[in-house]
C-alpha cells in the first residue's frame, strides 16, 4: 500500500511538514503503508516551468507519477492570504486532471491563527471534490497555538482512522487503457 504525503511548507523546519509527518505516522499505525513524502518547496521552479513549457521536469514528473500511483494521499498546506498557498494550488493545477479520480485524500492545513481553520472546507475540500477525489470527513487544521494545546492529537487520530478505512484492502493498480475504436464510433452513433 502506497501512501503519498504532499507538503507545501516552505520553511525548514516547517510546521506544515510536522503536521504531515504526524498524520502519516498515525495512518501507518493502523495499516501497513509505504510512505513517500513530496516537498513542494523542492519542486517550485519546475512547477513554474511546467506552466510555461507545458511539460514537467524530471523531479516533478516523478512526483506526479508518485501521486497518480498512490493508494491514498495526505495533503498539507500553510494558509496564505486566507487560502491554500499558491504553490500548493499550482502543483495540482499542473497535475493531470484525472490523476486523483477516486483516490482517498486527507486534507490538512497550518496557520498562524485558528481564525483560518475553515480554509479546509471552503478551499481544500472543493478543490479535491472537483478533482473527483474521495476526501475524508475530518480535515486537520493546526494553528500555532494548537501545538501547545489539547485536541490536536485526537483530530489527527480521527482523520488517520478515516483515511486508513478508505485505503484499498489489496493493491490494484489501474493501467491506463485504451477504448477500442469501434466503441468510440458506436457511442457517437447511439447517443
Amino acid at each position, binding site marked *: 500500500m502506497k501512501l503519498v504525503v504532499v507538503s507545501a511548507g516552505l520553511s525548514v523546519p516547517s510546521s506544515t511538514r510536522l503536521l504531515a509527518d504526524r498524520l502519516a505516522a498515525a495512518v501507518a499505525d493502523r495499516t501497513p503503508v509505504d510512505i513517500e513524502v513530496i516537498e513542494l518547496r523542492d519542486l517550485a521552479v519546475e512547477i513554474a*516551468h511546467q506552466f*510555461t513549457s*507545458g511539460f514537467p521536469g524530471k523531479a516533478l514528473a516523478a512526483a506526479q507519477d508518485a501521486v497518480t500511483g498512490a493508494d491514498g494521499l495526505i495533503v498539507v498546506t500553510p494558509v496564505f492570504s486566507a487560502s491554500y498557498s499558491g504553490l500548493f494550488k499550482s502543483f495540482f493545477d499542473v497535475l493531470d486532471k484525472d490523476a486523483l479520480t477516486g483516490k482517498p485524500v486527507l486534507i490538512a492545513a497550518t496557520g498562524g491563527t485558528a481564525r483560518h481553520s475553515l480554509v479546509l472546507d471552503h478551499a481544500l475540500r472543493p478543490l479535491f471534490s472537483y478533482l473527483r477525489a474521495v476526501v475524508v470527513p475530518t480535515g486537520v487544521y493546526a494553528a500555532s497555538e494548537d501545538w501547545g494545546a489539547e485536541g490536536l492529537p485526537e483530530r489527527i487520530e480521527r482523520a488517520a482512522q478515516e483515511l486508513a478505512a478508505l485505503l484499498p484492502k489489496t493493491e490494484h493498480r489501474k493501467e491506463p487503457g485504451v477504448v477500442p475504436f469501434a466503441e*468510440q464510433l458506436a457511442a*457517437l452513433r447511439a447517443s
Partner: protein
Amino acid sequence: MQFGIFTVGDVTTDPTTGRTPTERERIKAMVAIALKAEEVGLDVFATGEHHNPPFVPSSPTTMLGYVAARTENLILSTSTTLITTNDPVKIAEDFAMLQHLADGRVDLMTGRGNTGPVYPWFGKDIRRGIDLAIENYALLRRLWHEDVVDWEGKFRTPLQGFTATPRPLDGVAPFVWHGSIRSPEIAEQAAYYGDGFFHNNIFWPAEHTKRMVDLYRARYAHYGHGTPEQAIVGLGGQAFMRKNSQDAVREFRPYFDNAPVYGHGPSLEDFTEQTPLTVGSPQQVIERTLAFRETVGDYQRQLFLMDHAGLPLKTVLEQLDLLGEEVVPVLREEFAKGRPADVPDAPTHRSLLAAKEAHEKQDKHEKQESAV
C-alpha cells in the same frame, strides 16, 4: 524515409532587431522556405492551419497549390488540418483538388487544434473535440472512398446522394497522418484505419513520445494492418545550427529567451536536454535525430521546425542549406543501416496507386479463375 520541414506560420517579432514582419512578408517567407526545401533536396513541406493572430496560414491548400505550381518533387502536407472545426466535405474537396494540381504530391495530417475560441467561432464545442475528430474523419474517408455518399451524423447536416468533387486523383485518397501529442484516442484512431501517426514531440520528453508511439504500434498490429514495426510513424524536431556549436548557442539564445513558445521558462540548456530542440553543430543535430530511432523504432517521416522564434528569413534559409546539405544526407544513410527490409516507407500517391492496381489485377485474376 522522408525528411522535411513543418511551419507553424507565426508572425513573431525578431527580438534582436525589434522588427515584426508584415503578414504579407511572413506568407511570402513561408513560400520561400518551401521552395528552398525542394532546392536542398528535402521531401516534405507541411504548413500549419490557424484562425487567430499572430498566425497567418488560415488557408493551407491555397498556399500549397501555389507551392505545387513552383515545385517538382516536394510532397505538400499540413501540420495540422483541423479535423474538428473544418467541414469534412470541404476538406475532402480541397485536398482532392490539390492532388490533381500537384500530380499527387499531397498528403495531410489531421489534428484537433488547441485554441479554445476557434471551436465556437466555427460553431463547435471544444469539449466534443475527440468526438468531432472521430465522426468528421469517418465522413471524410467515405467521401474519398465512395462516389456517392448517404450520411447522417451528430455534428453536420445529413448528406443524401452526395458526391464530393473532384474525385481523388486516380481514385486514390491522399494518405492521412493523425497528429496528436497526448490523446490515446487519436493513436487508436490512426491504428484502426491503418493510417499514419505523427507525434509532434517538439515540446515533450522522449519517454512520453515513446508511450504514445508504442500504443499506436500495438493497436496497429491489433487491427491486422501488419506488425507493430510496420506501423507508419512520423516525428517532429527542431534545431538551430552553425558550423561551430558555440556560435549556434550564442546566436540562438536571444531568440529562445524571448520567443513566445520557448521564452521566460526553462533555460535553453534545460529545454534542449528535455526536448528534441538541438542548438549546435550539424553533427549534434544528426546525433540527436538518430537517437529518435532508439526511442520509437524505425520510422517513416521526420519533420523539422526551422522557422521558429522569430528568426529572419535569411537565417532560416541558411538553416535549410545546412539541413539539406549536411544533416539529411547523413541521416538518410544512417537510418537506412540496419533497417529491416519489411519496414515500409511512408505511403505516397505513387505507392498507393501501385498497391491499388496490384489489388485490382489480383481481383480480376481471381474472377477469371472462378469463371473457368
